[in-house]
Each structure stands twice: as structure tokens, then as C-alpha cells.
């Protein structure tokens, strides 16, 4: 009989019974409430839209774990996690604005259409005020657009394309995760120290928008440290066998291979590049090197030994030593028996940030919430001092440069932190050309009224 009454349905039951007594038809249109899905009872429902089938299902599962944990902490259960270290102390562990937090889940299938269908059902059927999660930029941009049209808040999960807060930025959408430009800006100096300024890079890039924006960013930052770009080859998504793209690399005059791939593509291209002997090769009198700009724990697990010594970047890692990280890793680890991934972290933080913004605004109205998030400066959530920039709804914080560990002791420390790149180094102007330039605009906030 544990956790009875834990569902939204259970709580609605009481309301329904009293409503049934009246039995009088009341017709109203959606415009009658002050804004979309204004919570009226004693609860508020959040939507967690993550991939549960398809290649990123495991990542989605980890996001879901973190989101459930966040709801627990918001409702005052468990040890409170990062609520205790969060610089804003508006949240008291009694839900949001005194309303108990409920959640619904959905499957994005990592397809824009399915993700939007799932998000729509959350908005139309379950009455959510915010949607959080996801594991791909295409999905994030699609769902962000939907939330903008519907008049609720979108707190992006893992999305690394510059476009999410660049040319596709939306007034109702917010991203805590870092992006391709930041990866490039953080990696540049580290690569310069490790491999020198006289290098020739060969890019293999996943042939879709995320791949292109990341490649553009990395090329810019490596050329800024004096590297030359030999070639950029676009590879089909899900190619599986990358041999025909890898074999030309060694005889191309390049001495660094940059893999702008994510997920299974990265696992395969890196594994195969290592099999083709690129790690052992010499080119231009130097050791040949491989760089994977965007890392995730699951990719590292999938690639196994092949990532040893390979540089990349991350939004956050459980091995950080600040108080927020420690509190989060402790409560996540005790509940699930494993350290959280960086996509789990970003979803947890986004949920907390949303709840906090609602509390500070004193309203669930998405426009009020957006205003509370814009320009918000906070600390204690694992990334150090962070700014939610008003102009593009992108978080600015330190970026982690990672490296595949040479001697991992467990399956969880296969990546080690090389450097915490300070936020100043990864800052850019809101109208940066890689982010849609002057044309990019958030548009008007929409509360659905």
C-alpha cells in the first residue's frame, strides 16, 4: 500500500466526486482560464518527455530517474538533494507554491513527430504547465516550438546544437545544457596545450543540423589556435560501418581526427578509427590524435577502452567536488545505486530551476516564470555560478573538458576531468553569427490566453 495517492488521478478523484454532484453542463473554451493549464486544485503536473524507445532509451531512462528525484525533493521527500545547496532558497519542500508536484511521462522515440505527439498529449490530456527532457536537438527544437504555440514552459534536456538557443530560440524555451560553440571554446586552449599549434584536423561530421553546428564551432576554435582544417566529410546518420570514411584520413595529410558524432554513431566511428590503427599512427612526424567534442557517460561506456586519452567536453560530471554535485550524487546514488549522468543532471536542475522561478514569480503563468528565469543568477547546482541569459535563454557556466581515463577503477570513472573552463572563456554575444545573428529573436512570450 506504499505511495498510495501518489497519482494526480488519485487526488483528482475528490474533485471529481464533488463535481459529479452538480451534474450540470458547463461549456467553456480554453481561453476562459488565465493561461494554458492553470493549475486550480492542490496539485501541479509537470511533463517529462524523454526517449524511452530507440537508440537513446538508456539516456532517457537516466533523465527520468533524475526527474523523479527532483519531484521527490520538491515535495519534501528524500534528503532534499541540491535544494539544500541551491543559492535561491525560495523552495521549501512543500511542492510548488504549496501545490503538490505530480508528473506524467512520455516517449519521444527521438523523433520530432512522436515527441510532439507525446508533448501534445501531456498538454491537452494531462494539463502540464512545463515540459522537460529529451536527448536530441531536433526533438528539443520541435518540442520547444510546440510549447511556444501552446503557451507553456519548455525546459530543454540534453540538446547541444547551437540552434536551440540560436536561430530557433523561443520565448517559452530555456536551455541549461551547454552547446557546440561552448565545447569549441573550451576545447581550443586544452588542445593547444596538449597537441601544439601546428596541427592539421580532419572532421567527420554527422550529416544533420547538430553535426553541422558543432563542426562549425570546433573548426572556428581550432583554427583560432593555429590549426589547419584539412577536410570536413559529412557522414550519414546511423551509418554503422564508417570504414569508407575513415580509410582516407590517414593519407590525407591530417594528424588529428575530430569526430562530430553522437551516441551510437560516435561509438562506432571511434571504435573503427581505433581499429584502423589511427591511435598508433604517426603523421607529419607527430602522434595521430582523435578528439570527440561532445561526450556522454553512455557513449563512454559503449566505446569502452577506445576512449582512453581522447579529449572531449561535458556539461557536468559527477566527479566534481562542489557541494551541489556532492549532494546530488549522494541522493541519486543512494536511490538508484549509480552516479547520475550529465543528461540526468541537466534535467534535475531544469526541474528545480522551473519550480524556483514559479515560486519567485508567485505564479505559474509562463510569462511570469520566463521573466523570473531571465537574467537569473544562481549557484550551488553543480556548475558553479551560472547565469540564465535573458537575450537567448541560454545558461552560461563553466564547461568541463574531459579525457578518457587511462586506468579507470570502476565502470563509472572512464572519463576524467581535465579542466573546468571558466565561463568567461565560453561567453559569446547573443547575436553571434553562429546563433542566427541579428535576425534571431525570442519572439513574444505566449501564455496561451
Amino acid at each position, binding site marked *: *500500500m*506504499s*505511495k*498510495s*495517492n*501518489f*497519482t494526480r*488521478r488519485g487526488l*483528482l*478523484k*475528490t*474533485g*471529481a*466526486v464533488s*463535481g*459529479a454532484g*452538480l*451534474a450540470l*453542463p*458547463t*461549456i*467553456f*473554451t*480554453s481561453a476562459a482560464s488565465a493561461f494554458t493549464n492553470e493549475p486550480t486544485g492542490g496539485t501541479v503536473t509537470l511533463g517529462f518527455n524523454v526517449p*524511452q*524507445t530507440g537508440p537513446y532509451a538508456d539516456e*532517457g*531512462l537516466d533523465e*527520468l530517474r533524475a526527474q*523523479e528525484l527532483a519531484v521527490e525533493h520538491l515535495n519534501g521527500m528524500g534528503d532534499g538533494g541540491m535544494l539544500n545547496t541551491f543559492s535561491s532558497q525560495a523552495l521549501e519542500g512543500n511542492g510548488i507554491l504549496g501545490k503538490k508536484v505530480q*508528473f506524467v*511521462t*512520455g*516517449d519521444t522515440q527521438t*523523433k*520530432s*513527430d512522436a515527441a*510532439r*505527439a*507525446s508533448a*501534445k*498529449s501531456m498538454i*491537452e*490530456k494531462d494539463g502540464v504547465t512545463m515540459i522537460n527532457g529529451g536527448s536530441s*536537438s*531536433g526533438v528539443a*527544437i*520541435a518540442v520547444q*516550438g510546440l510549447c511556444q*504555440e*501552446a503557451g507553456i514552459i519548455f525546459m530543454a534536456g540534453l540538446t547541444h546544437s547551437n*540552434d536551440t538557443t540560436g536561430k*530557433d530560440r523561443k520565448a517559452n524555451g530555456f536551455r541549461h545544457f551547454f552547446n557546440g560553440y561552448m565545447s569549441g571554446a573550451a576545447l581550443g586552449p586544452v588542445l593547444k596545450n596538449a597537441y601544439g599549434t601546428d596541427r592539421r584536423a580532419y572532421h567527420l561530421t554527422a*550529416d*544533420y*543540423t547538430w553535426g553541422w553546428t558543432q563542426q562549425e564551432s570546433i573548426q572556428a576554435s581550432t583554427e583560432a589556435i593555429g590549426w589547419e582544417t584539412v577536410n570536413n566529410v559529412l557522414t*550519414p*546518420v546511423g551509418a554503422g560501418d564508417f570504414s569508407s570514411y575513415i580509410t582516407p584520413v590517414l593519407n590525407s595529410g591530417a594528424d588529428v581526427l575530430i569526430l562530430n558524432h553522437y551516441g551510437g554513431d560516435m561509438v562506432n566511428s571511434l571504435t573503427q578509427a581505433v581499429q584502423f590503427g589511427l591511435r598508433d599512427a604517426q603523421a607529419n612526424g607527430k602522434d595521430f590524435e582523435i578528439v570527440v567534442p561532445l561526450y556522454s557517460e553512455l557513449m563512454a561506456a559503449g566505446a569502452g577502452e577506445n576512449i582512453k586519452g581522447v579529449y572531449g567536453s561535458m556539461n557536468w560530471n559527477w566527479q566534481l567536488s562542489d557541494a551541489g554535485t556532492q549532494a546530488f550524487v549522494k541522493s541519486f546514488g543512494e536511490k538508484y545505486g549509480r552516479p547520475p549522468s550529465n543528461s540526468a543532471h541537466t534535467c534535475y536542475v531544469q526541474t528545480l530551476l522551473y519550480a524556483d522561478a514559479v515560486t519567485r514569480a508567485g505564479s505559474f503563468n509562463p510569462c511570469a516564470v520566463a521573466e523570473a528565469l531571465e537574467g537569473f543568477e544562481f549557484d550551488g547546482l553543480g556548475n558553479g555560478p551560472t547565469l540564465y541569459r535573458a537575450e537567448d535563454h541560454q545558461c552560461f557556466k563553466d564547461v568541463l573538458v574531459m579525457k578518457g581515463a587511462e586506468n579507470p577503477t570502476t565502470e563509472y570513472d572512464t572519463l576524467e576531468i581535465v579542466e573546468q573552463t571558466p565561463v568567461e572563456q565560453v561567453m559569446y554575444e547573443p547575436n553571434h553569427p553562429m546563433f542566427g545573428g541579428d*535576425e534571431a*529573436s525570442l519572439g513574444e512570450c505566449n501564455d496561451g490566453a
Partner: protein
Amino acid sequence: MKMLGLSNKDTRFLLIVIALTLLTPIILQPFPEGSSLAQFNAGYPDLMQRFAIFGIFAIGFNILFGLTGYLSFGHAAFLGVGSYSVVWMYKLLGYNVVPGILLAIVVSGLFALLIGFISLRRSGIYFSILTLAFAQMSYNLAYSVLTPLTNGETGLQVYTNDAQVLMGAGAPNSPHFFGIVMNESSKLNLGGWEFTFNNGYYFCAIVAILVFYLSLRIFRSPFGLMLRAIKTNQTRLNYTGLNARPYTLAAFVISGMYAGLAGALMASMDPLAGAERMQWTASGEVVLMTILGGAGTLMGPILGAGFIKYFENIFSKINDQVLHGWFAFLPDGLENFIIGVSHFFVGKSWHLTLGLLFMLVVIFLPGGLVEGGQRIARAFRNRKSKDDGAQARTQPAE
């Protein structure tokens, strides 16, 4: 009663379909809001729209596959083309859906004419692979090289700086039909029930009824008879001096236009067109819908479409929290056991349930869901005739 050139039986059938379609928002909302079974309610706008849209897609597919037996594995290409056409019309003209839908039908028709003309030079599996190849090429190019036209992975959408030349000052800022905004709904609260009557759903529903009527006419027409003859024995048809190709090509183009219309309606409900709409999995989905429901029957494809979309949208949302809510009355040990077993079938494992049901239906109901419906109807009729003679006949699905 006879109307619109239909027989008695068909008229009654059409009326039933119309009634069911119009009452969908009520029929799909059988459980009161507060009850724990409300999870199974499907009467929210997005899913109802999908039922109608995929119903149209499957009805059209059935005109080709059900009548001629030609199994196309590339119909998703037309779906995608339809969606892209509509979103481009939004970008260029404005949010009224009419120009886009008309363009979508024309463009998908032309596209189908081209692909059909080439693919129909072969039959059987060779035809299927040709259509598959065309659709996969369209998908791969739309996802990558054709990004300027399709916006690639992100999906084609409207930006604030788009031209939208026909957009008046007061025009709605989302898809509408001469001012009737698609995403607006009226809600009716009746006791514990809440019914949502959505403009977009009714727009799709009316279109679906029209194209259903059209397919009914095609099935009953000499043209439909000719198509069935092609399925039965094309060689014999050739001996009679008839060239079957123009007929099959006509069926291919018509069903391509249905797919284009379905794609257009998808973009009319939700102004975004993604490339994965053209992937082989989407083509395969409509094949599955048609076979699952009952290929060659009028009602089957619609049932199949509803079945698959229902599982995709309802079962995938049943998570641990919901399960705990349902089984909370049980002792903890039993509760955890049941929830453990349920993990195989709901939430992230909803695919498994769907796969099992595919197998069960095809093993036990060789004619698809329609056959299931007919069996129930027959059983019902038998009992009824025992009860009170032969009174009103229950309408079989076809």
C-alpha cells in the same frame, strides 16, 4: 434509403461511420476524469486528430493494396511531401490551411505519378522494393542534402521573418480554416466527464468522411472492379486485351494523393514537417495498419490505424507512478510483483505489447480486426435472432 448513389447497405454503413466519427470525442472518453481508468481515455484533440489523419492515410493505402494487391513500401514519401507543401504555404502565404492542402494534393499526386510510372513496370516484391528505394532516397535527402528545402532534422517550421504575404493584420497566428482556428476547443463538463470538441479534429473528421465516401464509391465502381480483377489474375486480364497498367497507375496516384492529404492535415494540425515522416518505418506503419485492420475491407484500415496510434500514445505513458496508483490496494509484495510483470508491457516497453498484439491478431484473426468485429457481430446476431426473430441486422464491417 438510398442516397449519393449508394446502395441501402452502403448508405447505412456510411451513416454509421459518420455518426461514429462525429461522436468520437464522447466515445473515446468513457471514463470520468477522476477515475483511475482515465489513463485509457483517448478523447484529447491530438490523438483524435491522429486517428482521423492516419485513417485517411490507411484508407488511401488500401485503395492500392487492398484492391490491386500491389504492396507499396514507400507511401510515407507522399505523406512527407504533403506536410512540406503545407508548411511552405504557411511560410509564403499565411496560416490558412486551404492553399497548402490543395498544393499538397497536387504535388503528392504528381510525385506519385512519377514514382508509380516507374515502379509499376515491375510487380510483386520487385515493385515493393522500387517504391521503398524511392521513399528512402527522399528521406535521406530530406534529412541532409535538401535541408534548405526541408530544414533537415529540425523539421520545416514557420519563422517570424517568413514572408506570409496573405496574412492580414487580425489573422490568427496558427493554422486556421478561414478564421476557424485548428487548436481551439470547446469543453463540456458533464458530471465527472470532460469532453473536448476540437475544431481541428472536426476539420479532419469531415475530410475523413468525405474521402471515406470517395473510397466507398471507388470500391463499388467499375474501376474498383477492374482493380480487383488485376489482383485476382493480371495475366488473364491481359489476355482479354486490356492493359492493366493505366488502372493500377490511377490507383497508385489516388492513394498517393490520399497520403499527401493525410500529410497535409498533419501539418494543418501542427505546423511542423519532419523528415522522419518519410522514413521506411512510417511506410511500414501504414502497411501494418492496413493488414492489421484487414486489407481490402473498407473499415479495416481505419481500425488498424486507430489501434496502433492508441497503443503508441496511451500505453507509452503508463509509468511506475501510474501503476502504483492502480495497484496500491494490493499488499506490497503482490503489488511489486504485478508492477514488475507490467514492466514488460507498458511504459518504455509499449513496443513489446504492440508486437505481441500483431502476432496474436494475425494468428487468430486471419482477416484482421475486421474479422474480429464480424465474429462478434455474428455471435451477437445469432443470439439476437434467437431472442426476437430477425429484427434489425447488425451492420458487418463490410
